[in-house]
């Protein structure tokens, strides 16, 4: 107990120090973890209504934010890791701000966004009661050498989950995990309604194992299916249309099919977690109020014109982003870095089709791999006006050349962090660490 208190004090001090420096969010967690390796399990020991892990390649941050909003909308106290630092240490870091000195978190529920590898590490320290598994796509291949391997990590996570698992019915890497959960653990599914099933290939990884005998599950009365009525409005249906429960119609602040699927996943999980307490009207109100997480279509007002920041990190995600945003003509910049957090191999840019940018062209490519991005665009016959690897110089030139027009920047993770830092110094935008509350 003393040891934990020491860990909390040490971690809080490190957190305060790193906040002053505006530094990385994982450092205080590292300090606390060093002092007390059992820190996580201790801190979460008194969270009575469940420890929920959200994992998968794309949409973790958005889905987590939506799920937390719906749960809080039902009056629950929810602890979450809002900074997008989805590693174990990041979880501890965000926890430190809310911990009393005894080191036990006071919350009804914990909802944690964790990447595939760290979700398993976390589960080794604390067994999750629930897991919400979104999808498997090629991402940061340095870390997860193969899609099959990533799918295995998520299956292991599901195996260690004690109460309930929510799976993507349309992603066969995920839906086949149903065979891996322990006896007595409930399985629910989320997915899309048959009316839009033809749009799945644009957002989903191809499963190459098409000749095995896997029979996809059939959705039941507790499984949520997305039924859009147009590009922005949708319902989540449970059970046969008309007979069962539905959430919506509603409109999200974040655009696109991917966000609607995230909302469907969050709604299905919330319904499982809340049971009879679940109230469709409360869920709708909460989902309507959720703002896009930073870098997921976040809008910065620059001299009266919107500048959208769109995070891209893998072929499926970039393709979705182009499908969501590419159709409205705006001035476009693309910034590609190749640091560890971006994915060091830029080969994936050749698995994305940039044809939707052909008509408008791209105003600027930037980042360490600015020339590789421009070269990629050449091969899709997309014109590029300027190439400037230095992000700040590129941003200045881009803003100057497109003054008074709506603008959009597609960027990898570290490129976005740099651009955001520059923009934050000049314009009004929320601090990344603060934005989720």
């Amino acid at each position, binding site marked *: 107990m003393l040891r934990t208190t020491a860990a909390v004090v040490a971690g809080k001090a490190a957190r305060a120090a790193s906040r002053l420096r505006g530094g990385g969010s994982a450092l205080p967690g590292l300090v606390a973890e060093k002092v007390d390796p059992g820190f996580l399990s201790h801190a979460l020991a008194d969270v009575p209504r469940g420890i929920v892990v959200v994992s998968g390649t794309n949409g973790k941050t958005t889905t987590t934010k939506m799920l937390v909003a719906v749960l809080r909308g039902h009056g629950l106290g929810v602890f979450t890791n809002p900074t997008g630092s989805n590693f174990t240490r990041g979880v501890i870091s965000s926890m430190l701000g809310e911990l009393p000195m005894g080191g036990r978190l006071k919350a009804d529920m914990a909802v944690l966004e964790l990447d595939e590898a760290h979700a398993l590490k976390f589960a080794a320290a604390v067994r999750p009661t629930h897991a919400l598994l979104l999808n498997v796509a090629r991402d940061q291949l340095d870390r997860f050498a193969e899609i099959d391997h990533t799918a295995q990590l998520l299956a292991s996570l599901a195996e260690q989950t004690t109460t309930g698992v929510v799976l993507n019915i349309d992603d066969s890497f995920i839906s086949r995990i149903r065979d891996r959960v322990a006896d007595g653990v409930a399985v629910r599914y989320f997915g899309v309604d048959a009316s839009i099933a033809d749009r799945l290939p644009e957002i989903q990884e191809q499963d190459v194992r098409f000749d095995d005998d896997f029979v996809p599950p059939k959705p039941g009365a507790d499984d949520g299916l997305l039924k859009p009525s147009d590009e922005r409005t949708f319902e989540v249906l449970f059970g046969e249309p008309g007979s069962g429960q539905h959430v919506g119609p509603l409109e999200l602040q974040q655009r696109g099919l991917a966000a609607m699927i995230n909302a469907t996943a969050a709604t299905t999980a919330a319904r499982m977690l809340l049971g009879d307490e679940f109230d469709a009207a409360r869920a709708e109100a909460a989902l309507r109020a959720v703002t896009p997480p930073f870098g997921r279509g976040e809008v910065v007002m620059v001299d009266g014109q919107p500048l959208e920041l769109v995070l891209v990190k893998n072929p499926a995600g970039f393709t979705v982003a182009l499908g969501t945003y590419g159709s409205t003509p705006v001035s476009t910049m693309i910034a590609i870095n190749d640091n560890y957090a971006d994915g060091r191999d830029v080969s994936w840019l050749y698995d994305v089709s940039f*044809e939707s940018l052909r008509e408008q062209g791209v105003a600027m490519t930037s980042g360490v791999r600015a*020339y*590789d991005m421009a070269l*990629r665009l050449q091969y899709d016959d997309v014109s590029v006006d300027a190439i400037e690897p230095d992000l700040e110089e590129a941003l200045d030139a881009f803003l100057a050349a497109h003054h008074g027009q709506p603008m959009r920047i597609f960027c990898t993770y570290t490129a976005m962090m740099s651009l955001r830092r520059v923009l934050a110094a000049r314009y009004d935008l929320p601090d990344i660490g603060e934005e989720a509350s």
Partner: protein
Amino acid sequence: MSNLPLQDVDVHIPGEPEGSARVPSADRAGKGVINLVHLYPREMSIYGDLGNTRCLAARIRRHGYSPVVHQHHPGAQFPAEPHLLVGGGGQDSGQVRVEADLEHIGDRLRELAEGGTPMLMICGMYQLFGNAFITVEGQRLPGLGILDVTTQGNAKRMIGPVVLDTEFGEVVGYENHSGSTTLGAGQAPFGTVRAGFGNNGSDRTEGARMNNVVGSYLHGPILPANPALADALIALAAEKATGRPFEPVSQDDAVADQARMRQVRRLVK
């Protein structure tokens, strides 16, 4: 699979126009038709290797020829007159799916290789073009034997950016492989490693070249940023296809050259 119509199994190659698998009429063939075959694009082109096919097809057009892009899938009829072959890397599950077909078309591939048909085989397909792959457990899986190389399965992966010196000049790319490859006694490498691991991380060789077959671990994909290699393959293919020497059109490769030079400058100390 084999009874499905071809368009149902073909994968989308980003950027390639529809109908690029169709043979153009004589008046639209330009300097000649070049049959470009991508082996197992569905199973064996993880990490952007489809970009090599896109790059070759685009540059064939820019040089005034007409590419016909054939996708060869397991169990399908092998294209009659291939002039240029490419293959990429895959996951283990993808590799398993192509092995039987590769054995089936093996004689044809060996005959084409001996006849001088240019081929570019990356990562997993490079390994399969070798003599054998020895798994971590010691099991020997025979390859096509077109390249005199042997690959030993490894627990550790060799991952990272690469710079090579090759007969096509400096070549940049990105390697991601767990196999460690050794060249046979008379086997020439594709390049010498200046940054990165290469075949095995110890002898500074990367890839292999036999006749006009190039094997390499480099993704990136390798061709867009290294247009000299792309054009060398196209030149050989054009000669095969037309019986005349290659008639190139001069290309503006300034962006590719910048992309490559910047990687060289970053990585070679």
